[in-house]
């Protein structure tokens, strides 16, 4: 089986995996970081969202062989202590209910705010429409993104 060198949350890992194995299962089952979730396996729900070089990707449909040199960031890599502005905003607005989709929601929101410090509703819709929340926390997600944006002003 091929071997891959990965940088995940700033740490170097070497994993042996089938080249088609999605990054999601590498992160969860080989590396052991379980904050990234499986929701659909076909890049429709966004629960598996991680960053590759800062850009959001659906790790359930992204083969490990395509990662290359790009650093991977997962929910666990945002901060040591829930101090990332998006995490703080998520707590301040009491966003999660069941919480299962929220790692993916947060990773999408972080990527949005990295490229757009002050997103309007349209920008939020565009960036967050790939993430499903069955508990229906969308109103609070919208609010929390605006709150997170306000923290850096």
């Amino acid at each position, binding site marked *: 089986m091929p071997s891959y060198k990965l940088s995940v949350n700033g740490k170097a890992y070497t994993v042996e995996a089938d080249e088609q194995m999605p990054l999601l299962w590498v992160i969860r089952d080989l590396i052991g970081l379980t904050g990234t979730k499986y929701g659909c396996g076909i890049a429709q729900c966004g629960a598996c969202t991680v960053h590759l070089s800062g850009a959001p990707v659906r790790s359930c449909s992204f083969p490990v062989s395509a990662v290359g040199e790009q650093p991977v960031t997962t929910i666990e890599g945002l901060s040591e202590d829930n101090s990332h502005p998006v995490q703080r905003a998520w707590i301040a607005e009491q966003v999660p209910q069941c919480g*299962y989709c929220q790692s993916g929601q947060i990773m999408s929101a972080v990527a949005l705010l990295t490229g757009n410090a002050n997103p309007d509703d349209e920008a939020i819709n565009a960036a967050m429409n790939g993430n499903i929340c069955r508990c229906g926390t*969308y109103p609070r997600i919208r609010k929390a993104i605006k709150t997170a944006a306000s923290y850096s002003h």
Partner: protein
Amino acid sequence: MKPQDISRRHFLRQAAWSGAALTLAAYMPVNGQTTPVIVNPVTGGALQGTELMSWISISPAGKVTLMCNRSEMGQGTFQALPQMLAEELEVALDDVEIVFASANPEKYGPQPQEGSFSVRGWAPRLLRTGACAREMLIETAAAEWNVPRNDCYAENGMVINRKTQAKLAYGTLVEKAAKLKPPTDVILKKRSEYKIIGKSAPRKDIPLKTNGTALFGMDKKLPGMKYAVIERSKRFREAVKSFDDSETRKVPGVSHVFKVKRPVFSQYCEGVAVVADSLWAAMQGRKALKVHWNDPDFDLPNTASLEKQMRENLQKIGSHSRFEAEYGPCTQKLEASYETPYQSHSCMEPLNCIADVRPDSIEIWGPIQEANWIQADLSQRFNIPVERVAVHMTFLGGGFGRKAFPDYPYEAAFISKEIQAPVQVIWTREDDMTAGPFRPGAFYTLKGGLNTQGNIHAFQANTATQWIGQEWSPTAPGAPEAAGYNTGDFEGLLHPYRQGIPHYSFGGAGTHTPIPVMWWRSVYASTHGFACESFIDELAHLAGKDPMAFRRAHLPAPRYQALIDRMTELTAWQSRGKNQGWGVAFTECFTGICGHAVKVTRNAEGKVRIEKVIALMDCGWYVNPDIIRAQVEGSIVMALGAATIHATTFEDGKAVQQNFDIYLMPRIADIPPIEVHIMENDEKPGGVGEPGLPPFAPALANAIFDLTGRRIRRLPFSLDEIS
């Protein structure tokens, strides 16, 4: 807070019988009294044959631990229960740690997490437990100081001497307090005295859900654990005829392939399990598997035939003669039919479960809504004494009723027993979405007749659906098979309509199909509510009356008058705009009453869009208003999906929608602004997690009628197709 799995024995060893901590338990007496009994296990009490619910313990360090026998799937139980305890115990909310209790009906009482029950069911016990502990600590301190009890009061984890201002922390008192008998005459606080209950407080599980550390079933691992996936029949209730696993066994890591079964009500569904060292290997092995299925011995259901059957069944219900005698002479009459589809729960966390079956024990870990049922079911099916079956709950990535069913733990136990090792069974999204049980579709015919004043004289609602009770037995009394007269209930319909309407009739017919069905958030109210509140609106228009005023005229009870008055005020109903559509609906289920008002407008492209939703919840006495708002917001989103976006349909004996590419979900851009308001009154605590869902669909349909003159009588419908 650190939610962790902890056995009761471990808990007690650390707490009660160390003699150093104050530990109390509460149970409801079996004689039907409504006041719970509080027991101190050190001084003894009637522990046998009772349903103990919660154990609380205060350690010498002053730490308060609450063993939570409720599952947490996002509904805020982990916040509401500590709030109730902290209020009467007089400690800060942060001083209460909550831990998951494993299934043990004798010690904790039933553990189902459905029926929107956490607060309304357990408030009396937690309040009284907290108050008893507080009184025992005060009594201990008073004895210490040798002063009358009334010279002392408790605040913020301390007993304080009013006269000297001396203070003793709870932790220093617990050893002596633990030797006291709990008082039987505690006085609970008045609502006006509350400092914690009734206020929004941040949920303790939320920080775990923003950094990836919350442990869901999917995330749990055991040493030496194997992974399994199951090739399931696509058609309902097909049996395995044979399978070819030659390619599967070539996949590195695959260790076992064998036939498995899963109990679905009174039947078993078959499949072929692929067990491997990793989930990925198991999934690859499953892809390589070839299974031949036996044709089931029934007509393969499809949506068109199901709907035809339900329409025919509606005709068979007939009418009650006494109802007809009242309805017949009415001068203004209306009949209408409403149709609602099957739906999948589709929790974001697909089903999964870990089992470790030994010759004389079973241990289960998973996202579980119904720990006791699972414990009893496994005990019976595997012939292992119930006390040797442990069911451990993780966080649930959504539940909505689906995770209150014991099929998926059984499957894991079946496989673990076969391979003699712990195993985690993971359902793919496709497995989860197509296997059911589903929310049943339901079809309705309603009839209404008005009197000369334009009020409802006679009202009939007949239902054809797959009654959930009939899943266990075709003859189970799921619902009336004939129409009654001034008797029975129609889940979702506000109760006082039965006083405001002189002649009413509810009838039902069961539709039998091989499709498994079960409860889905708000159960029958999720579809009944659409039928009854759309029809009430139609009758209002028939009478030429304002829909809000029309409802008010039929709901004489003061609680409901107040609800409608408040909604009138919140919506500025009298002065709502001319080119807007406003619709309102009120429903009631699980003792929660909720109204929604929906405002729709036509945009520049001529499309109808939802501009705003105003929700008004009356759940009586409540604990945490922010959790109520969150639950109602979420219910509206879920209802919006079920009303305007998705449905489960069947072709050739299979569910058509297998994943989120076809079973589309509401997304952030689909969600209008939502305002949630809460009624303030002193009614008993009511449900919150489910009652916020049913009024949305009828309120939206009524708003569309108001704007366009078009009646929506079938769900789901596309907003894009309304003009």
